[in-house]
């Protein structure tokens, strides 16, 4: 489905300095039973956020009042594991519009782009700078500038550019999705299908 347009996002960030955060942590399998895309944010990082008796784990970052914002900053290899788009839905539904990491798992990255969450890959050094700055001062703001493909730590002005292909960038800026594109070339696809051997 079409999604919100993404242009320039300025926000505080929630730091999660752990590597290999897998999709089973982002949304455990037992919460994949919905048949509509609603309510997944409630179970984002469920088993890191809640004890088994459903009380809050006070030390987990989402349960600390000092951290909030629309940007989630995770350690290297964020989103590894399953193809469940529910992980990206949970991130979005919780209120994040951007995930920053030094490395993303492929399918998670693609799923984010398909629902309007911007994955921003930065260098390991810049990632550490963000973690350090947010740790010292949780009110630290980041600016994610999609048109210029630039991420900036606002207090110091330190910035880095990030990659995104022109096609996906245009989709994000305009809130388009792939099906819009594919339906426009339906004739080409039908012709191709007629000539496919299998």
């Amino acid at each position: 489905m079409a999604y919100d347009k993404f242009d320039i996002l300025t926000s505080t960030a929630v730091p999660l300095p752990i590597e290999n955060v897998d999709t089973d942590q982002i949304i455990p399998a037992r919460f994949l039973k919905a048949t509509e895309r609603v309510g997944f944010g409630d179970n984002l990082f469920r088993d890191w956020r809640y004890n088994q008796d459903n009380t809050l784990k006070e030390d987990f970052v989402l349960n600390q009042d000092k951290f909030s914002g629309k940007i989630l900053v995770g350690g290297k290899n964020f989103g590894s594991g399953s193809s469940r788009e529910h992980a990206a839905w949970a991130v979005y539904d919780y209120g994040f519009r951007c995930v920053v990491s030094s490395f993303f798992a492929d399918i998670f990255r693609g799923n984010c782009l398909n629902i309007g969450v911007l994955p921003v890959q930065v260098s390991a050094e810049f990632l550490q700078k963000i973690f350090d700055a947010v740790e010292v001062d949780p009110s630290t703001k980041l600016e994610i500038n999609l048109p210029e493909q630039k991420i900036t730590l606002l207090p110091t002005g330190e910035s880095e550019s990030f990659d995104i292909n022109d096609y996906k960038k245009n989709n994000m800026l305009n809130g388009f999705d792939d099906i819009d594109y594919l339906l426009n070339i339906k004739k080409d696809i039908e012709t191709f299908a007629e000539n496919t051997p299998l």
Partner: protein
Amino acid sequence: MSATKTLFDKVWDSHVVHKIQDGPDVLFIDRHMVHEVTSPVAFLGIKNRSIPVMHPEKTFATADHNTPTINQHLPVTDPLSANQLKMLEENANEYGISYWGLGHAKNGIVHVVGPEYGITQPGATIVCGDSHTSTHGAFGAIAFGIGTSEVEMVLATQCIMQPKPKRMRININGKMSKGVTPKDVALFIISQLTTSGATGYFVEYAGEIFRDMSMEGRMTVCNLSIEMGARGGMIAPDEKTFEYVKDREFTPKGADWDKAMAYWETLYTDEDAIFDKELTFDGSLIEPMITYGTNPGMGMGISNDIPMANAVQGGATTYQKSLKYMDFNEGDSMMGKPIDFVFLGSCTNGRIEDFRAFASIVKGRKKADNVTAWLVPGSHKVESAIKEEGILDILTESGFELREPGCSACLAMNDDKVPAGKLAVSTSNRNFEGRQGPGSRTLLASPLVAAAAAVTGKVTDPRELMVELV
């Protein structure tokens, strides 16, 4: 420019409908498998747009992820699971998609039944809303997992939009040593590459060790490609592949077979083809593997000690967090650790060959009293073979019970959950925190290692229990 191509290039390039400048390729999909968990929102999407399924004959539906593995003839008691299963059936019926639901003779795990009925074919592009779709690469297909938005795209247009991955080849020569199975080969590769070592790549497995493997073994290897971050993995089809595929329900027959074979026989990597990355290992050095941490890259030879934090790739904090969750220490030996559960099954190791291997160890022995064992065939076809080959008798004699097909404790969406704190030896594919139930602790291993643990009640080197071949 050289005209030589890799196997991956040949299949990918022949499926590109349209190329976008500085963007993804529009890739035509030959086979689409759907299951109950990742498809409802996709069907809802096309419903909301009022568009039909473009090629219902190219999509196949089966129920597997949240189905119970006992009493499948009774109504599903969990209302949320029951609702997802009902939605799948309704959607399949509404759009004219073949549907092998719970209770159907052809029901089973999507990546087990696809090959069994010949839906999986060499040179095809195959997708499913499940990351272990890479399994089908064993036949020389390009197969990979997709998200629900992409499931919707395939339903609507039979295409997805993907940037072409880079090419990696993993060469392993030599023979598998005693007690070593395809699962160990895969866990070894992942331990060398880490869980992100192949991210951005599509892998071709080449060399003697893979050529010697059965199709079931190749499926196990390709299945685990995603666990090193690769989008998928594939093995060039050969006589073994064609022999497996021939005469299955959905494979071409007669003149169509000859035509298909003419195409399939071109599916190999040309001699001078270039890979973006190439790795080579000596297969004879691989021993039975076991994992000790919370991702599939944290694995080692079963006789080794858990590495020290300063000796591994990645951050020490993350590593120690992982060991703390497992309640293990750096330098621990895994051998002799008491275990509580054994799970034999999943799209990784739920095929007949896996049950044969398990039975070869437990035969003439008894299940340890402290172990709860879940033996779950990947499909009804596997279940039938277990019975026909006399494997069920061996299992029963040793105190094991056979359950009904499904994904089961691999991701614990149904009632097959390992309780918090309990230690399970599992033939599945992920040892993530809580993967097999909240608080569960998982050791990934082969069916042989699982069997050795099941009869001794602790982590045991299966080679100690194997009959010497003279």
